[in-house]
């Protein structure tokens, strides 16, 4: 693909805005719903093809591919879309013309072209982005991330089979981030560009985008879990640990919603260490129920460094390390005191004790700029006050560990309404 070819495609997409705006958001939603249901139907060729290709493209096991596809596609069915539209816009009529918002008459105009530049790693994220911009009736060009090529490709193809007018308004492509010429071409005609990625990626796109393109940035963030004493009770601890393990293992921990740190309340009876052991047990079970894909060289090597350093700490302290046998990628490190160490990856997390929530907030303060989801379990009536503190610090979502991996389509992504953020509001004051 050349930059000229991409430029031509971007122009073509932009010109499709006129046709797209002739249709109601409901028609768009129904078309998306149809594709979603095909992805969810075990007998449909679309689902069969997706599940056949995802493991190789996204480097996940077949079992994990199924979980991911189900978790993603369920958010594109009409009921979920309706709810998301309602929560973002109140009166959905604003997407098709002037509607009312209190005493105001408003309409929400989607961009003539939205370009999504999506980080790699989690299959389905690019399609989520496409769905959002199509719902606000914006032609959409997706630069899908590495490992997220299959679902958007099949999504666009399914639309072209059934809803050509919508298919004309969306395109998914992949190119290497070093191809600055292609990124530049993609952005040239974009009214809005969403960018997912590291701080470096965001900075690079800021330099590349024309001043007329509005950037919506989703920079790198990380998630944590905080476990309170109530979750350590014998009747609850296994379930709590299992939910934490599932959150760690989702998408092979490539998503920003997957925790890498687990803070456990120290109630003086070995609670944090015991909880870490429960998480390790749950990771072991998860490896059986939902196997990880084979490690690549980078990951395997990094895990050796992580485990070796953790074991050296453990050799002269009360730290502990558990990990899967050869081929099993999970690693749980219990740190009695916070340690510096190699980064966690591929189903790996550090478990640390906490004794005072105020002190924990202070410990998290240095990471405030990169806080994403906060998984909370067992805090009881302290949950709200603590969430408020973490929210003021930087977190944008407080949820149960079990729900961390798959936020609903109406989630306040980075603290903002992600569909509303795409549109331009127009107010009618006259008449």
């Amino acid at each position, binding site marked *: 693909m050349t930059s000229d070819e991409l430029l031509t495609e971007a122009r073509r997409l932009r010109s499709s805005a006129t046709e797209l705006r002739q249709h109601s958001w409901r028609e768009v939603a129904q078309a998306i719903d149809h594709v979603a249901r095909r992805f969810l139907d075990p007998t449909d060729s679309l689902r069969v093809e997706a599940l056949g290709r995802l493991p190789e493209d996204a480097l996940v096991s077949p079992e994990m591919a199924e979980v991911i596809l189900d978790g993603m596609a369920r958010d594109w069915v009409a009921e979920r879309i309706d709810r998301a539209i309602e929560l973002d816009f109140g009166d959905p009529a604003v997407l098709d013309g002037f509607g009312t918002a209190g005493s105001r008459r408003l309409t929400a105009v989607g961009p003539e072209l939205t370009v999504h530049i999506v980080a790699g790693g989690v299959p389905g994220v690019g399609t989520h982005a496409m769905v959002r911009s199509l719902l606000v009736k914006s032609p959409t060009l997706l630069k899908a991330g590495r490992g997220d090529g299959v679902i958007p490709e099949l999504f666009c193809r399914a639309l072209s089979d059934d809803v050509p007018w919508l298919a004309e308004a969306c395109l998914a492509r992949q190119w290497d981030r070093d191809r600055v010429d292609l990124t530049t071409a993609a952005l040239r005609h974009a009214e809005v560009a969403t960018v997912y990625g590291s701080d470096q990626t965001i900075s690079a796109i800021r330099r590349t985008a024309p001043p007329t393109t509005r950037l919506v940035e989703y920079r790198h963030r990380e998630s944590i879990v905080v476990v309170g004493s109530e979750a350590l009770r014998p009747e609850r601890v296994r379930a709590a640990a299992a939910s934490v393990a599932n959150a760690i293992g989702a998408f092979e921990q490539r998503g920003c919603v997957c925790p890498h740190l687990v803070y456990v309340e120290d109630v003086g009876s070995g609670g944090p260490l015991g909880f870490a052991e429960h998480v390790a047990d749950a990771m072991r079970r998860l490896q059986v129920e939902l196997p990880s894909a084979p490690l690549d060289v*980078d990951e395997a090597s990094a895990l050796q*460094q992580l485990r070796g350093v953790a074991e*050296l700490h453990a050799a002269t302290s009360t730290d502990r390390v558990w990990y899967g046998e050869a081929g099993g990628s999970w690693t749980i490190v219990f740190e009695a005191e916070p340690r510096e160490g190699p980064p966690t990856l591929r189903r790996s997390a550090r478990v640390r004790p906490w004794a005072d929530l105020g002190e924990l907030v202070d410990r998290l303060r240095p990471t405030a700029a990169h806080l994403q989801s906060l998984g909370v379990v067992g805090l009881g009536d302290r949950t709200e006050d603590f969430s408020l503190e973490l929210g003021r610090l930087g977190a944008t979502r407080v949820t149960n560990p079990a729900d961390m991996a798959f936020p609903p389509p109406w989630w306040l992504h980075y603290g903002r309404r992600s569909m509303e953020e795409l549109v331009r509001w127009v107010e009618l004051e006259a008449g």
Partner: protein
Amino acid sequence: MTSQTHPPEATEVAGTPGTLKHLLHAKDALATSMHTVEEWSDSALDRWCARAFAHQYHGSERYRRWCETRGVTPESIVRWQDVPPVPAEAFKHFDFVAPEGHEPEAVFRTSGTTAGSEARGRHNVLSLDLYRHSMMGPMKSALLPDDDGIDVVSLIPHARSRPDSSLSVMASEAAAAWGSGCYWLVDAEGAYVRSEIERWLDRHSDEPVLILSTALALFHALAEGGPLPTMPEGSRLMETGGFKGATRSISRDELYARVEERWGLGQDRIVNEYGMTELLSQLWEPILHDGPSARGRHRPAPWLRVRALDPTTLREVPEGETGVLAFFDVANYGSVSHILTQDLGQVVDGDVRLQGRVLGAEPRGCSRTMDDLMASQISS
């Protein structure tokens, strides 16, 4: 090489392993043996590996306990391969000193400026003398097999200004040992020292020189308007380090082509060194012995063992297959010898063919420190 050598297996080491006395005796015994690059048999090396491990095991509580959790003791090992390799990342978090509690004579540091980690690796060197002995023989064999004295032109700062850089210490030691004239063209901040350049240009003659440089320093020195002229015939160039993390890079082939074009040094005069802060010994391309066909093949110092391991199982891969490299360096006697790196390579006939660094792993070593300095100078 020098005639003041004796077969390493003939030596005995006094003192209880894990004590300073033992280390110093080992250092003395090794010192003479390390002057040869030819007389290290497998059995000799095995004995030294066992000694080094026993010393480190008894000299470091953390290391001993770590080995014990793996069921490994000096008595249990049959081969050096049985010693568990310490991850190179551990040098960022622990001070490996055997025996513990003794002040190191030097601390070599990695740059730690890239890949998201602020931590810098540190290698505590209890005996600089042992480092010197481990370094000199292989370096001389690689760079000066035919000469005992030569003008040294260094694009690496002197150790006086960069005492924590193993590369600077290496350059300084080499210059002191073999430099009939020494020219330090770069200061501690990576800036050119114009007076030194002029001093060398004034004395520039037909006598060959040894140039010491990192790849990035070389890249900048060869740039348009670079400070150095064509090199006299018989000159040779040591180049080390890479470009990862730098804002600009070129292939090694292109870099060497520029060396030939600008300085008149052919492929048969450029020797690449591979080293890392965590290892006190180095590997060299035997270019001056075997010619350009040795390009890409690094020969370890005789007391440095290497294996390529499956990164998942840490089992040795068959000869010629790619794996993560692990080294056992006897010269690390006073710290820890068996190191698991994140570098990929193949081992063929005891030599290493590097395949690069694992993606996401940090570039390390003092060459990066220098490269960072050079890069900051260029951009300022």
